[in-house]
């Protein structure tokens, strides 16, 4: 297990390097003058251009610049924005909020999605099963910004059940509605995956054996059927955590949340390359780590899987 984890961690390095390089090229190889419009209505002064060119090594070839950036990154220096703010400060301010939002979304999708999926999968073809199928199809077909507007308008403005926007500091109570919006699509997929996985496994031989040897139904379903059906669902949820953090751009915009999504969107629009690269690198890292955790979880869920 330990050796497997170590090997996987080492395999992450080329992927991480590749992703950061890809983003680096996309951000810095943009056609156009990086200083266009940077100084308001006037053209930038020579002194400013010289200083910024030196700061971002703009005179070096791209590949040299990239390795200089990596060198700084390894020393924990994420660089500065054009205005001289430390990118690490910006990220440190935005990251916890989005992390909280993604956790809320993940909790909602796991609890509601798994619950609905298990109930539907146990009674395939029943009334609740059809309800789950139709309602998840409905959710999947609605774009996230539409769901966001509808819930914000209905639950927030009309009935006032939830706060319409998220206040500073992003307390968990404020994040329930945005979390629901962010996790809605994945919730539908989790419910459908769990349903089909469970419906498939419930016919397996080991379930028949478990029933035949007289185990109570609760144990048959809970320990034997559900645990073994969780593998594809866990795979999806794990991969989804990274997507949730990166996909929060629209949700954060609708509910006025100061998180990573808003930060990266603003940075892309303002061509703040250093911030974009830092945020995306962190997102990729989270994504890769989550995938590793998921793979390690397989062994816990399915006793047949062993890692050497």
């Amino acid at each position: 297990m330990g050796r497997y984890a170590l090997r996987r961690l080492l395999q992450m390095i080329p992927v991480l390097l590749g992703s950061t390089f890809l983003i680096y090229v996309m951000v810095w190889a943009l056609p156009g003058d990086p200083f266009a419009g940077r100084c308001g209505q006037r053209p930038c002064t020579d002194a400013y251009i010289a200083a910024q060119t030196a700061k971002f090594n703009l005179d070096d070839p791209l590949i040299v610049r990239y390795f200089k950036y990596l060198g700084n990154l390894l020393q924990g220096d994420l660089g500065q924005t054009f205005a001289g703010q430390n990118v690490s400060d910006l990220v440190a301010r935005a990251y916890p909020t989005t992390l909280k939002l993604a956790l809320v979304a993940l909790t909602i999708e796991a609890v509601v999605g798994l619950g609905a999926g298990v109930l539907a999968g146990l009674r395939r073809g029943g009334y609740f099963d059809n309800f789950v199928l139709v309602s998840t199809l409905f959710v999947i077909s609605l774009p996230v910004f539409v769901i966001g507007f509808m819930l914000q308008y209905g639950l927030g403005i009309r009935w006032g059940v939830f706060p319409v926007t998220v206040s500073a500091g992003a307390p968990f109570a404020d994040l329930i509605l945005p979390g629901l919006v962010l996790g809605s699509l994945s919730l539908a997929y989790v419910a459908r995956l769990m349903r089909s996985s469970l419906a498939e496994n419930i016919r397996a031989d080991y379930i028949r054996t478990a029933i035949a040897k007289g185990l109570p139904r609760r144990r048959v379903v809970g320990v034997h059927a559900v645990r073994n059906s969780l593998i594809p669902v866990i795979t999806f949820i794990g991969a989804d955590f990274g997507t949730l953090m990166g996909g929060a751009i629209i949700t954060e915009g609708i509910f006025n949340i100061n998180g990573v999504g808003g930060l990266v969107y603003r940075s892309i629009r303002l061509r703040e390359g250093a911030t974009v690269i830092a945020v995306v690198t962190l997102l990729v890292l989270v994504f890769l780590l989550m995938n590793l955790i998921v793979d390690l979880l397989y062994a816990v869920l399915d006793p047949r899987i062993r890692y050497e």
Partner: protein
Amino acid sequence: MSDPTASAAGVTGTLEGHAGSPPTTAEPGREKPRSLGRDAWEDLRHNWVFWIASVLILILIVMAIAPGVFTSASPTASDLDVSRQGPGPGAPFGYDLQGRDVLARTIYGARASILVGIFATAFATIVGSFMGIVAGYYGGWTDTIVSRLTDVFFAIPIFLGAILVLTSFPSDENTSQVAAYTKVAVALAIFGWTSTARIMRSSVIQVKQADFVQAARALGASNSAIIRKHVLPNSLTPVIVVATISLGGYIGAEAGLSYLGIGLQPPVISWGIAISDAQTYLRVSPHMMMFPIAFLSITVLAFIMLGDAVREALDPKLR
């Protein structure tokens, strides 16, 4: 655009492989065993979901090709006197902020969504299949390099990647419409081909070991002939499923990008732009937003339903 392919990843049936299974699977009284393709079609024919989705998609495609069939109003004629007027006689969907007919704009908006969806799916499927075949067929070092490359692209969230690409190459009012559609489609496909590549790779690895591939090689067929004649046709099934389902996802993503103001730009008529324009007036004139949303959702729904039906028909595990 979460990962709609996750649910399709389990489909690994192959056309020829199934037909070659012992004839005991064929029902008695039949002259010859049916192929998986025929079987799937028999299944689809009796599936009402498939028919509803197909009819909807057909209507939408006609709408995209000839919007004039559905409305006689012009989508660009504006009359500020009727700005934000609700549905009524003459304009069943009402008017938007500029006093343009919402029905006409919604009908004409189908073209952008359908084209971007089809382009993006085509690009992603072609690139993904190519990479998947190369990695799966040649194996070894080629596989390692292509697979790591796939990982690199897979790790970057697709929506974020598309925003980056579109910001680097912005469209403006001088960009031709086809160029604008292509740009958005390419931006989505650059980070969207990875799931197709992964599925294609695993599918190819399975097919590669089949006896008929070994036989073809023994007869001296070249690699390219084996790939064209045997590997590709027999590993396409899961890719078709993923393509159909992700088409709906790409249409939704296009609307999301246009909604953010980065995707398609006016004067292109698009549901995403219409929704984005209407959001400010949601409380006073909800009709401006409702109709584009309804059409967008129905379009995405139709493609996802079609993909679902096709998957159920092709997945041998569900038989």
